[in-house]
């Protein structure tokens, strides 16, 4: 029963890795698609290396964003930081209306070209869904539960780690999922500002009119997104199962 939850992400991962390593095996197909071109498989960089860079970029920015947003979300829901709660939730909701491409583009005048502005833009943008969901999750806990915990003599730290965060974990995880999904897409566009990602073949293909390159990049990015999404799905399932067993609430 246990392993079946992971079957789907593992399958997608296998397909992704197979496609990354074996893209050149499909060369005849791409030749048929692009008959007049000599190079039909993107060869300026190894696909596996680009995949690694893409994942690294999303993971680093996602981790930083999730941690910062959760800490901020926890701080503004403590008695000492409550003054900042309305502002924080306003920032989270207004910020999410900013299109990710525009944020990415604005980071260039501020930070120049390359991986650094992409990382910063992804990190800043990734903060918002996690912050919003952390606030929703922590604020949505019924006061009676907190009262009961206090009545049992739990310290504020215990209440935070044993009651509030576990209860909010599902909502927070959903925020992380949204943030990572957006960032995988935005990192691909990061190719236009000089970050090395799986978007490179697409951009190169669009510039040179090489549909095969575009297709290769698109397939790999799509598979990466599906792998990540199914991974989050599986984690959420596991969390629900554990929740059901322990019946804390």
């Amino acid at each position, binding site marked *: 029963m246990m392993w079946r939850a992971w079957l789907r992400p593992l399958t997608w991962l296998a397909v992704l890795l197979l496609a990354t390593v074996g893209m050149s095996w499909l060369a005849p197909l791409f030749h048929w698609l692009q008959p007049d071109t000599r190079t039909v498989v993107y060869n300026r960089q190894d696909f596996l290396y680009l995949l690694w860079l893409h994942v690294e970029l999303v993971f680093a920015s996602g981790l930083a964003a999730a941690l910062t947003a959760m800490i901020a979300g926890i701080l503004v829901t403590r008695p000492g930081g409550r003054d900042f709660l309305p502002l924080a939730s306003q920032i989270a909701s207004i910020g999410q209306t900013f299109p990710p491409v525009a944020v990415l583009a604005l980071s260039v005048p501020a930070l120049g070209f390359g991986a650094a502005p992409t990382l910063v833009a992804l990190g800043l943008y990734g903060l918002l869904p996690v912050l919003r969901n952390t606030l929703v999750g922590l604020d949505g806990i019924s006061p009676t539960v907190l009262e009961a915990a206090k009545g049992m003599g739990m310290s504020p730290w215990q209440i935070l780690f044993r009651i509030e965060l576990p209860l909010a974990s599902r909502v927070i995880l959903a925020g992380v999922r949204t943030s990572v999904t957006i960032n995988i897409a935005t990192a691909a566009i990061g190719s236009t500002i000089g970050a090395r990602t799986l978007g490179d073949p*697409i951009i190169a293909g669009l510039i040179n009119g090489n549909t095969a390159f575009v297709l290769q990049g698109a397939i790999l990015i799509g598979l990466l997104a599906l792998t990540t999404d199914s991974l989050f799905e599986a984690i959420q399932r596991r969390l629900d199962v554990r929740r059901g067993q322990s019946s804390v609430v």
Partner: protein
Amino acid sequence: MRLRGFHRVIPVLAGLALILVWALDFAGVQPNRIVPATGFPLLSAIGGGLSAFYLVGLALLIILPSLPWRMPVVKTIRTVIDVLAILLLAGLPLSLAHFSRLHLSPDQPFARVEVGAGFWCLLFFLLLIMIEVLRDKGTWRRLMTAAVVLVVWFYDVRTGALDALSLIREYHNRSDQFATVLEQHLALSLGSVGVSLVVSFFLAVAMTRRPRWQRPVFALVNFVQTIPSLALFGLLIAPLSYLSAHSTLLRDLGIRGIGWAPAALALVAYSLLPMVRNTFVALTEIPADLLEAGRGMGMSESQLFRQIKWPLALPVIIEGVRVTTIQAIGLTAVAALIGAGGLGTFIFQGLGQAAMDLVLLGALPTIGLALLADLLFSWLARHWRVIPEITS
């Protein structure tokens, strides 16, 4: 009694603004479009008088809310803080106009004023202060405040005092192109939202009639939403160029592998998830007791629909339109990469030529459109909420 609510938030924001506006370059002069600018810190940038206005203003925003005011004075102090925040925000373009008077000489016709990091930080924190100030005010007050600030800004632009500003130079150089690009952007994003609204409505109605369809339809639209935009655009290019190469009809319609066709297809596909979800929820999750009560009053099915179901569903559907429109405005900017036009053309051209003003000319209006759509549809949703709250 202290000023409730914002007695700590505004001083913190104003303090950060004070530090950053002092430490970073306020604005710079660019000899021409591509050469990097020489920056000036606040004092040398806008002179003693205006600097003092901003420094003292921010200092007051730190001090005033922190003092323990007594009851009758509190109201006056709150008004002072409101007015001060509006003055500081509305005066920002004047500071740039003053900067160009001080630092640009008429013998450099190509020189332009570049807005510095200090200015951006000041703008950002003043906007946050504004949000905090307007938090407990009514819609009318908020609209009035926004209108006052925007009218002052617009007036400054109209008088030509800001013509040396790099962004405005860039706009004047391509005002015709800007109109075209804006039109393309609106047509593509709003057109896709419109199409997906119609499709989603029929899908949602079909799903309420045939529950078997729910799972596959939601699985499909979820799947599409997971695929990153650049990848979906890319995946559509190959089949569309194949079709267009083999069908003269499609070619005559202007459908090709790149251009508006794959962009519109992808945008409609992306728009389906938020739209179908909200429309479906709107049509199905109507409190049973309300329908019971309606039937009890002797309403016919069509009366039930017109007087109960539809008014309850409308705000939820509009919320779906809001989310979809914001998303579509952003994705249309990406679609410029596959030749669909729109504001993204400026963004990616600017990135290609390392011309940052062009990037801004594309990116800032894109954000503006998204914010505008957000405001408009949130207002509509609130306006048409017949019953204040649905308790289920």
